[in-house]
């Protein structure tokens, strides 16, 4: 879906998201967070890539070209490309590739080498491979059922890449188990990186405290926090992109 929102596009950064109203009525009531998948600064459009999972995304899919849509954004903190990195590993699981596209464009723009790993249940759920290859990006695939590429988890591919020793930074977005695996893996190798998280959202602007994730407590916080060893951060404004070393993912 491509949306013409020049004011929004002007400000948009890779990794940010928009909060989308899927119905003008009450069903569903809440907005849906959807990542910026494409940002066309010239045309003033953003594009959204989403998987139909429930009522909200189904209604989005039923929209016709030319329909108006109510989006808030751009919201959240996006990816930042640290100075000095030379070769990045980009890992996307399932629909998690959506926000990685603008990042991949940025990395290319900055002349940073990258390998993109895509993981999904099966070949049908691998998204964007062709576009990435057209872009001249190295892509490797893993599917749970082996219907495309390596049969197994994308984290295994990541392990190979990292132990191969090439990447000096990583970026990832995907389901929590994948991110969890990746975080412990990269920690083992001492590789830093950024991950983009998902959480159920209310406001999208930091006002309701619905979307929190656990973050390692900063030093010198009050006893309550350090006792449990974490503080809650808001995915919508402190994230969705966090330093991998900072987040704590339960199960």
């Amino acid at each position, binding site marked *: 879906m491509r949306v013409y929102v020049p004011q929004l596009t002007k400000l948009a950064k890779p990794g940010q998201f928009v909060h989308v*109203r899927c119905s003008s009525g*009450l*069903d*569903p*009531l*809440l*907005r849906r967070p959807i990542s910026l998948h494409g940002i066309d600064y010239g045309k003033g459009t953003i594009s959204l890539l989403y998987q139909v999972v429930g009522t909200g995304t189904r209604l989005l899919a039923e929209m016709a070209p030319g329909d108006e849509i109510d989006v*808030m954004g751009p919201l959240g903190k996006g990816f930042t490309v640290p100075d000095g990195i030379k070769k990045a590993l980009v890992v996307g699981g399932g629909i998690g590739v959506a926000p990685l596209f603008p990042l991949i464009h940025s990395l290319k723009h900055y002349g940073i080498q990258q390998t993109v790993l895509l993981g999904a249940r099966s070949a049908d759920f691998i998204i964007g491979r062709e576009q990435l290859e057209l872009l001249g990006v190295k892509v490797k695939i893993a599917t749970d059922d082996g219907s495309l590429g390596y049969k197994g988890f994308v984290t295994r591919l990541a392990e190979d890449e990292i132990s191969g020793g090439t990447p000096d930074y990583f970026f990832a977005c995907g389901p929590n188990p994948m991110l969890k695996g990746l975080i412990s893996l990269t920690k083992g190798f001492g590789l830093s990186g950024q991950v983009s998280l998902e*959480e*159920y*959202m*209310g*406001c*999208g*602007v*930091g*006002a*309701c*405290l*619905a*979307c*929190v*994730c656990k973050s390692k407590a900063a030093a010198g916080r*009050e006893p*309550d*926090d350090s006792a*449990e060893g974490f*503080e*809650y951060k808001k995915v919508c*404004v402190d994230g969705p992109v966090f330093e991998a070393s900072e987040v704590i993912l*339960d199960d």
Partner: protein
Amino acid sequence: MTKPADNLTDKPADNLTDNPADNLAVKPAVKPAVNLGVNLGGLQMKNPVTTASGTFGFGPEYAPYVDLNRLGAITVKGTTLEPRKGNPTPRIAETPAGILNCIGLQNPGVDHFIAEDLPYLRNYDTPVIVNIAGNSLDDYAEVTRRLSGAQGVSALEVNISCPNVKQGGMVFGTDCLMAAEVIRVVRENTKLPLIAKLSPNVTDIVEIAGRVAEAGADALALINTLLGMKIDIRTRKPFLGNTMGGLSGPAIRPVAVRMVWQTARAVRLPILGMGGIMNAEDAIEFILAGAAAVAVGTANFVNPGAAMDIIAGIEQYMKDNGVTDVNDLVGAAWK
């Protein structure tokens, strides 16, 4: 039963809208300037619309969407003596025309609020209502004292009704004597307008309202969320991190309107009505039921400009219907 006159605003002149159309010398029909100003138990508001605690953060979050100067008041997230972490996630679930939340009063503590959040709010010409909660009467007393000494706090809204915390919270809110005790303690420690926020999870809202009125509340806020829950049939476990949560949004509006109606007719305190207000029509429904002012909660998530639209819509309704003072609408469905 009618309200005493001193609960109504006596300064309508201050509160004229400055719509230039109203000042034209020649008008097609008589269009009087309308008064939107209300007095909520001593808190003078330029219009009857505030935000519902917990849905509007501490103000800055919605500043890109809402002109904070135009609000009747800003009601901020519930504050406690100590910082609170809140509950594990998921903290929010969607239900038919409503949402369940179990935030669990996550907040940085009253001192942090006073030092870090209040200064921002002082930049605006809008009264600040601080929502407070506690585990014990001593907590309520101490939070009250600290806030009463802070510059820029215009009123206290005492949450004796949060269903999402283990200690205190709803236990206070559903037990008449405990509810009254909390209000008495807060009253002893502040001269600020004191708004008692009631739980709807009770058999007799009027009885509780009566008790907290006797205990010294200046106004009543109702309703807080209805206690609810959702089970995930895939995992066969409760969906929310805290098992149960508070139901808000349009789904609960009929219950909220009923409670405002019952309470307004029986208790002589101005009411801050809330529960599922999405637009001006809904807000007017609460005012007609007897609310002197209204709070916009869940609607902010759906339409970040909801409060602005509601203020404009109430004004428009008054003009369309020849109502010059919003106070004339308060309780008009039964007065």
